[in-house]
């Protein structure tokens, strides 16, 4: 029951923060001089990309923890974050496409970052297909952990390989300075926070479904044992 309450609080908080973020994006943040209103999609695009990356990192860490501890909990958390990561990556690709159409005059270009996002999407969709193909829970958990680890090791290599080609993607956040208006930065920060909270809420709810399923399975097993 306590979990339930925390979830509800999280849902309320992330909704409020998300609405605030949307309000600020459209009424507070200055309209970009060159790109105009289209640039607003940036406040969704970047947080989504960031959270997607966070999901894959969490999946990697849970994969390692599962292989070390053999606790099915880590499998559930890992798979929940991959699923959400794939959804977020899909949204990154879609929002990016929508943004690219008016600005670069094309839906898609083989720019390094676009290519990297697409490859990451492919890797983690493969993870989900693998998950659907294995029935037995422990075997599935092990294989998915291995896939999550291998996939994440591949992430820097994918980025490097894509970097070695020329890029037209804007590098907004460099190591030293951020190339944006102060008002834009604060809106971005709020949008980031909103998406982070939303992400945590989603992970919790998604993994709770799996935990419940696990409990039902175990109860069924006990019941069947009692009948025989």
């Amino acid at each position, binding site marked *: 029951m306590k979990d339930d309450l925390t979830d509800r609080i999280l849902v309320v908080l992330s909704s409020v923060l998300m609405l605030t973020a949307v309000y600020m994006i459209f009424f507070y943040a200055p309209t970009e001089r060159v790109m105009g209103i289209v640039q607003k999609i940036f406040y969704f695009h970047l947080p989504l990309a960031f959270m997607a990356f966070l999901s894959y990192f969490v999946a990697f860490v849970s994969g390692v923890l599962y*292989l070390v501890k053999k606790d099915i909990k880590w499998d559930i958390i890992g798979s929940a974050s991959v699923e959400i990561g794939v959804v977020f990556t899909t949204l990154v690709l879609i929002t990016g496409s929508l943004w690219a159409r008016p600005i670069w005059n094309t839906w898609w270009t083989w720019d390094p970052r676009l290519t990297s996002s697409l*490859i990451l999407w*492919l*890797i983690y*969709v*493969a993870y989900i*297909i*693998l998950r659907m*193909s*294995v*029935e037995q829970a*422990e*075997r599935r958990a*092990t*294989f998915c*952990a*291995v*896939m999550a*680890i*291998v*996939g994440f*090791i*591949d992430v820097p*290599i*994918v980025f*490097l*390989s894509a970097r070695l080609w020329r890029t037209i993607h804007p590098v907004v956040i460099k190591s030293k300075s951020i190339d944006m208006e102060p008002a834009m930065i604060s809106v971005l920060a709020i949008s980031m926070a909103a998406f982070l909270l939303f992400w945590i809420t989603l992970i919790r709810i998604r993994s709770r479904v799996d935990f419940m399923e696990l409990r039902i399975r175990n109860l069924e097993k006990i019941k069947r044992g009692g009948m025989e």
Partner: protein
Amino acid sequence: MGATLVILRKDLLIEIRRKDSVISMIFFGILLLFVMNMAIGIGRKVDPELAAGILWISILFSSVLGLGRTFSLEKTNRCIDGLLVSPVAPSSVFVAKNLVNLSFMLISEAVIIPVFFALYGDNITVRLAPLLATVLLLNFGFSSVGTLFSGITAATSRNEVLLPLLLFPVITPLIAFTVKATGEIFAGVPFGEYSSWLRLMAAFGLIFSCAGYLLFDYVMKEN
């Protein structure tokens, strides 16, 4: 080390007697070369980079065929149980299977590459030493990832379908490095200009052979 060689010898012996993996790989590779010739228009002259792409698509797709068999071989009559109870470390099995896949790939490439030159060789500079280096480095990376994944897919019900789905997204960087390097070799560029691609290929192989070596224990225990 001894155990690795025993498994390698066993698998090569099976292949010498049955010959099915390597022959299917070679046949499928050549078939793909023909199919792609039709796709781009029969008899059209191709530039070096496109030729490199054609060569590697044929080799990679045909190599997946052999990869899927290295483990399903052990599933017949539950030979894998024998491997697991024998005093052989799973990581030695990984090294052995990796070497098996490497040798299958090398044998099939020894046929596919000459056929490729016969079909597409008009605009291409032939440089054997750097091409051989590229082939070896690609094989190393491909079969390291592939051996690990074939261990995984062999334990699922959809082995042959699943393996390329898992494998190709992960090795896309390697494919990109390889095609770049080969394209420049075919264009006759001096070695210094593409050696960095070869180094990246080597790094890819090293990273994933280590990852496979470490992770294979867990995969084997689930088989």
